[in-house]
């Protein structure tokens, strides 16, 4: 039997029972569509979390104060005040792998400006901060070495802080704000970085580190030292070297009683992506179940089909169809159904993920991998779930098949 004739037979058979063919295709459409949509949501979440983490800066290690211990009593994380700007200078000077070092001290204060006021975090920083933490300036200029040396009362606003104090799109450069009752002159506004919730860099006010220590906190310690590694590979070594240096500087011999802790960005990325991978896997397996249900739908339909068309199969065999002709016809019928379902499913999955992105506000990403995966799976379903009914049809005895009522 020629391939072209075979396909003609298949299409006539499938069109002969449009309702059933359509319902079977629908099962596969839902299966494939949900795989595509679910995986795109999972991968979109992964991508947005990763870009959020990376917006903090790249190849970053952060040193934060640890537990203050006095005669065995712990005061909790962050209570120690032993981290200083000198520690940061020492890291920059002595550790070769540290590309740039940015110490900072932060606190929350009530800020007022021309009758409006807000409560936000004020961060004392050095000139190296923008490079290390990926902050870009939108208007005006950033805090300079000169500002730090002079303990100038100048401030750079994050865009959200600017909006709260002066209103959206208002030129704030040159205005003054009051922090803890002291006047600071606004010299610049940073670019928005997006992201929300805790630690959004859009809702911050930057001031010189020296000014913050002297006028706001009144103490000489820093709350975080951000260190940028030369490259991603050297992060672990850098972490070890920083630990050793700080332990030596703080005269601590036992690493377990260190008064600081170090957070490695690579670890954060790894743990975040393991969470999103689990999420993707979860969503994918839910979708996979609906795909299997769709596949069983195909098998069910093909089996009913074989039973219903027993006499027809008997006739085909009586007029000379071989086993191969019959099994190929039924197998290809199943495969055509899954393939059509797969293509339509990919289209609807794509539509669904666009809809989720537009109305649900969740970033989605359709990867070619998930499309290929879905195509492959739908073809495989056609073969696997079509094989058994096809074999059953081919094995029918023509004599019994012709008598079948």
């Amino acid at each position, binding site marked *: *039997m*020629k391939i*072209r*004739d075979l396909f003609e*037979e298949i299409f*006539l058979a499938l069109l*002969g029972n449009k309702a059933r063919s359509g319902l079977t295709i629908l099962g596969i459409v839902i299966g494939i569509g949900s795989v595509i949509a679910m995986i795109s949501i999972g991968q979109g979440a992964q991508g947005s979390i990763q870009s959020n983490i990376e917006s903090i800066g790249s190849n970053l290690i952060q040193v934060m104060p640890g537990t203050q211990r006095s005669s065995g009593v712990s005061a909790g994380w962050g209570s120690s005040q032993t981290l200083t700007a000198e520690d940061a200078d020492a890291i920059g000077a002595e550790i070769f792998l540290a590309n740039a070092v940015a110490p900072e001290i932060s606190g929350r204060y009530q800020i007022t400006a021309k009758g409006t006021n807000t409560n936000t975090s004020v961060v004392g920083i050095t000139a190296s901060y923008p490079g290390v933490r990926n902050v870009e300036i939108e208007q005006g200029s950033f805090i300079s070495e000169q500002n730090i040396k002079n303990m100038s009362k100048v401030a750079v606003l994050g865009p959200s802080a600017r909006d709260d104090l002066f209103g959206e799109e208002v030129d704030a450069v040159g205005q003054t704000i009051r922090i803890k009752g002291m006047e600071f002159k606004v010299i610049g506004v940073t670019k928005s970085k997006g992201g929300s919730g805790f630690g959004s860099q859009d809702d911050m006010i930057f001031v010189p580190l020296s000014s913050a220590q002297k006028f706001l906190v009144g103490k000489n310690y820093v709350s975080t030292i951000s260190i940028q590694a030369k490259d991603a590979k050297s992060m672990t070594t850098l972490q070890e070297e920083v630990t050793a240096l700080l332990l030596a500087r703080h005269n601590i011999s036992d690493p377990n009683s260190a008064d600081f802790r170090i957070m490695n960005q690579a670890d954060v990325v790894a743990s975040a992506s393991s969470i999103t991978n689990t999420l993707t896997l979860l969503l994918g397996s839910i979708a996979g179940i609906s795909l299997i249900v769709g596949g069983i739908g195909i098998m069910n339909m093909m089996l009913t089909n074989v039973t219903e068309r027993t*006499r*027809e199969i*008997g*006739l*085909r*065999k*009586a*007029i*000379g*169809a*071989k*086993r*191969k*002709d019959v099994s190929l016809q039924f197998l290809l019928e199943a495969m055509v159904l899954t393939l059509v379902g797969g293509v339509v499913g990919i289209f609807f999955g794509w539509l669904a993920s666009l809809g989720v992105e537009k109305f649900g506000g969740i970033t989605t990403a359709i990867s070619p991998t998930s499309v290929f995966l879905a195509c492959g799976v739908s073809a495989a379903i056609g073969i696997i779930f079509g094989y058994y009914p096809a074999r059953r049809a081919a094995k029918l005895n*023509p*004599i019994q098949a*012709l008598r079948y009522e």
Partner: protein
Amino acid sequence: MIWEEGRRRWEEGNRVLTRVMIECKKITKTYLTGTGAVTVLKDLSFAIADGEFVAIMGPSGSGKSTLMNILGALDIPTSGEYFLDKKSVAALSDDELADIRKNKIGFVFQSFNLLPRSTVLRNVMLPLVYAGVPKEERESRARESLSNAGLDEEHFYHLTNQLSGGQMQRVAIARALVNNPSLILADEPTGNLDTKTGEVVLGTLEELNKKNNHTIILITHERGVAEHADRIIQIRDGIIVSDERK
């Protein structure tokens, strides 16, 4: 050899025919059932010449259906030999039997067995599809075959479920004819038709035999139907009880 043997046999029967179409030698068919073996056909031997119109007659349970299955290459005998058009068919595989059916046999069934929801022409062309006949050739052959079977051209594009019983059986006959088979096997072709329509269908078969010299085997349990053939082989309990010629 077979040719000579056939010639000898037909001379014995006071008929000079050119060629043996079917030759059965000691055909036995045994089915294994739960309680034991049941022998349905017992050492049947007979021959049918090219161009004969033979009726195989017998009551139900006589073994005539089993014999038809073997003659139609749908089944193989437990023992014995069966030559169809000089080719041994007794011990072939499923696919080889399918080839024999495709090239040498045309079936007409009691219940027509037409494809529903398809046109008359497509039904008649179906054997040609499996035989690998080029598409261009199929329709003209199907049309020729349909007019030989006596169906009006106006019905060619009708769906089979719109036809009357007599018309459906004509379509089935046309389908059996379309491959130019060596043998047409009609299994109770009038069983689902009223007497008058049945007569017309039998007339068509007679005409195909007389005019176009097709070899036809008619399987029936009715004397009146069998009378249309030139030779009647009667079977009872798996053996031939009579073999008469008109």
